[in-house]
């Protein structure tokens, strides 16, 4: 599903965000990438969605080498990868329904398809009945669920969650992790980037640990060891 082959990422003049990172994630896996702040976790996410290009090495997503992807192809890549962020990235002037529908509207989906898909994904994340509320009228956990719903509308094979629980309390954190597990059970590969020790330890799934831009550990049923 995802292959990072000898990836290095340098920022001029002398910052090395990633150094010779290599790992392989198989379809259907739930993998946590952990590490302290500034270890290159977010750079890894940026490389996966082609927001940046590697300085060295190759990134392959679903057999597609995106190391030197053309600008015009980036939109097609992103329709195959769902991404959620710590700050949710929702549009405050749009309702829950409109925020989710937005991801389909911008790729030219028909109104019929939108009316079919959006209620389904809102049901998966447990937001039925809250379709017409605005982001400011729902809790942080619910806002993150909207973001997850939005990332699922393209039925991605890969869901990347970059610190999705960073702004949430423990109850909401648990709910979001449960939704991610549910999405994974439905067949989507999930990549969770986090520095939340409790979340990682409770998952008992594969854990890749980054330190100073390098992979220092890659274990099945791993734990947060830093």
């Amino acid at each position, binding site marked *: 599903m995802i292959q990072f082959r000898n990836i290095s990422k340098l920022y001029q003049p002398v910052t090395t965000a990633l150094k010779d990172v290599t790992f392989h994630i198989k379809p259907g896996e739930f993998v946590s990438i952990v590490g302290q702040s500034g270890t290159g976790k977010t750079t890894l996410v940026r490389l996966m*969605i082609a*927001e940046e290009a590697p300085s060295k090495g190759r990134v392959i997503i679903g057999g597609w080498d995106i190391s030197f992807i053309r*600008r*015009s192809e*980036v*939109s*097609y890549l*992103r*329709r195959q990868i769902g*991404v959620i962020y710590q700050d949710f*990235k929702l*549009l405050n*002037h749009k309702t829950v329904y409109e925020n989710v529908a*937005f*991801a389909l*509207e*911008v*790729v*030219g*989906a*028909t*109104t019929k398809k939108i009316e079919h898909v959006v209620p389904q994904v809102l049901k998966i994340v447990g937001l039925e009945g809250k379709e017409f509320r605005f982001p400011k009228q729902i809790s942080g956990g619910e806002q993150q669920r909207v973001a997850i719903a*939005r*990332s699922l509308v*393209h039925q991605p094979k890969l869901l990347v969650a970059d610190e999705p629980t960073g702004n949430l309390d423990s109850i909401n954190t648990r709910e979001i992790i449960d939704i991610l597990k549910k999405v994974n059970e439905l067949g989507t590969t999930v990549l969770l980037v986090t520095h939340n020790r409790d979340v990682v330890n409770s998952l008992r799934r594969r854990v890749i640990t980054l330190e100073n831009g390098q992979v220092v550990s890659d274990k099945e049923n791993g734990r947060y060891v830093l």
Partner: protein
Amino acid sequence: MFFVHIYRIIKFALQSFWRNFWLSVVTMTIIVLSLFSITIVVGVNAVSEATVESIKDKIDVSVFFKTEVTEQQALSVRQEIGVLPETESVELVSADQALVSFSTIHAGNSVIQETLREIGENPLGPLLIIRAQNTDDYNNLILKIQDLEGSELIEEIDFQDRATLIAKIDSFNSKISTVALFISLLFLIIAILVVFNTIRLGIYSQREEVGIMKLVGASNFYTRSPFIIIGVAYALFSVGIFWILLLAILAWINPGLAPFFGGINFDIQEYFVQNFFRLFLYEFLGLVILNTLSSWIAIRRYLKI
């Protein structure tokens, strides 16, 4: 799917336009003011050209014949001059007409009137009043007149003072054109900078939406198009508002402008009405190009997400 795309692009453009209503108003106001600046220069240029043309209309060469020259001989010279390529018109004034005209002009001058009475006969010969196709042609024309077969019948060719005047007018016209061009360019640069920055500001206020669009898989075409449409809408509304205001202002002030132009036969309102379609088209196309380029450049950084 194509029409769905176009419908949503237009919808997003309209939403952006209304959401940033005051910014849109400011942008269009600046464009309208820039159009006024440039159009004032165009108007000044038109007035200056009309003035020059008006003065040029009054320029001619007078060919005075000797007193013994008959009207038939004068007509024969007139025919020779009439076929010269530089000649626009030749008017023959007979000796009698010349005397009447001279007497009328100097009716109040008792010395001249007394002298004419003492002479007792017409001291003036016939004369030709010649106009050239172009002011540059006069010197050439005079040389050709001096080489004509009937040139021995000519007493005097009067052009010296007017040659200086023509040179001055040409110099003045050339300077006016240069200054007008310089001022137009200056206003154009100001307009480009202002429009570019206001469009950039509009896109900046929408950066969150643009960023999310890109993250969920919108193409660069889809992301960019609404801002191009907004740019075209700015151009259309601005030029429309500008022309409504301009024509209203001209209708209001035009009656008071006639004394200002003095003897010059120029109606500025008529000038702009006659040139409406040409100027509207130039201004609209110019603004569309300017706004499209501004949008294209300004949104580039947000497409890199």
